[in-house]
């Protein structure tokens, strides 16, 4: 009873806004947004995923709903369509909705006030609001992170990506609503994508430990480099809704850890070889 009362008094609802961000482009933000949102919906949470990349929308393609887009985020902000008209319900999982970005304008058309109203409305109906940020540190990226309660920082084990992530972590701590209103800070999580344990063993790639040591935010896990990611995007199926595979399992582990489950880390080491190949360093 007291617990129920407590919930009613924290925020309006328990909805959580999660931004998926990275600074650098091409590291897997949209793949992660789609996979993460779908897995949350599979786990039973009512989830919406919003594309903030105005002018270069792609989430609709990755989610496989590009032909169902009629109204978009900017139409809603400008009152040209209602939120319900713009939300696309996923045909595979109940609980999952997509709010596409506009393709005909650019990121400057996003206003913090307008986005704030949309997010406030979504908070009443959803448990998780996933914001797929565009690359860069321009208006689109800043708007995507502004209302975040938590952040998934997506990084590749590669120097420019790690450096950009560090910049973004600094902005999460200073340029968000939580920072400006002196609320508890945005809760950050690190996801390392395109991880190749074999190259790490050979010393050709930064290890998850190295990246963790430099960025120093809580670690949700690695997603191994996997052919199934391209295959899934080719067919418009989020990795977590596609057939099993390393990346599929890695994303479910990540979602379960995000939800508080204590799962051992996987996909960090090269699969064990037999005694023969170990003796002779088989490659």
């Amino acid at each position, binding site marked *: 009873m007291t617990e129920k009362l407590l919930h009613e008094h924290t925020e309006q609802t328990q909805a959580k806004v999660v931004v998926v961000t990275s600074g650098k482009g091409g590291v897997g933000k949209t793949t992660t947004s789609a996979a993460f949102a779908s897995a949350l919906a599979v786990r039973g949470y009512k989830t919406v995923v919003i594309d903030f990349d105005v002018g270069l929308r792609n989430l609709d393609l990755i989610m496989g709903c590009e032909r169902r887009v009629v109204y978009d985020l900017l139409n809603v902000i400008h009152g040209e369509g209602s939120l319900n008209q713009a939300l696309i319900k996923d045909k595979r999982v109940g609980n999952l909705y997509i709010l596409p970005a506009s393709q005909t304008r650019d990121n400057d058309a996003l206003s913090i006030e307008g986005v704030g109203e949309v997010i406030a409305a979504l908070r009443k109906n959803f448990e998780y609001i996933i914001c797929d940020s565009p690359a860069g540190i321009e208006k689109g990226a800043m708007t995507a992170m502004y209302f975040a309660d938590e952040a998934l920082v997506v990084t590749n084990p*590669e*120097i420019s990506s*790690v*450096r950009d992530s*560090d*910049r973004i972590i*600094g902005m999460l701590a*200073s340029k968000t609503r939580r920072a400006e209103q002196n609320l508890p800070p945005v809760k950050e999580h690190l996801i390392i994508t395109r991880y190749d344990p074999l190259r*790490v063993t*050979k*010393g*050709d*790639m*930064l*290890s998850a430990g*190295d990246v963790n*040591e*430099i960025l120093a935010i809580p670690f949700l896990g690695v997603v191994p480099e996997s052919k199934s990611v391209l295959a899934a995007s080719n067919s418009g199926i989020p990795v977590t809704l596609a057939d099993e595979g390393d990346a599929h399992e890695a994303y479910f582990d990540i979602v379960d850890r995000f939800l508080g489950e204590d799962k051992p880390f996987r996909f960090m080491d090269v699969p064990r070889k037999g005694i023969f190949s*170990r*003796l*002779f*360093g*088989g490659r």
Partner: protein
Amino acid sequence: MSFFDLFRFKRKSSASIAKERLQIIVSHERRRPSTPDFLPQLQQDILGVVRKYIPINENQIKLSVDRKGDSEVLELNISLSSDS
């Protein structure tokens, strides 16, 4: 590590070079936002005070913040040489 790795010429891996470079650049960039933005104003104020007693121009006064170990050092340099 395999048996033959023991005999391989030990060279610094590119990953460890990457890590070192990142540690340096990231710690440098994290420090930057803490550089006070009142420096130009402080410089103008000091210039005003010094000018009450000695005629100098803006180029003769230099102000900077440096980090030495754990402490920050505010360095003020006023050169009184002839005109520059």
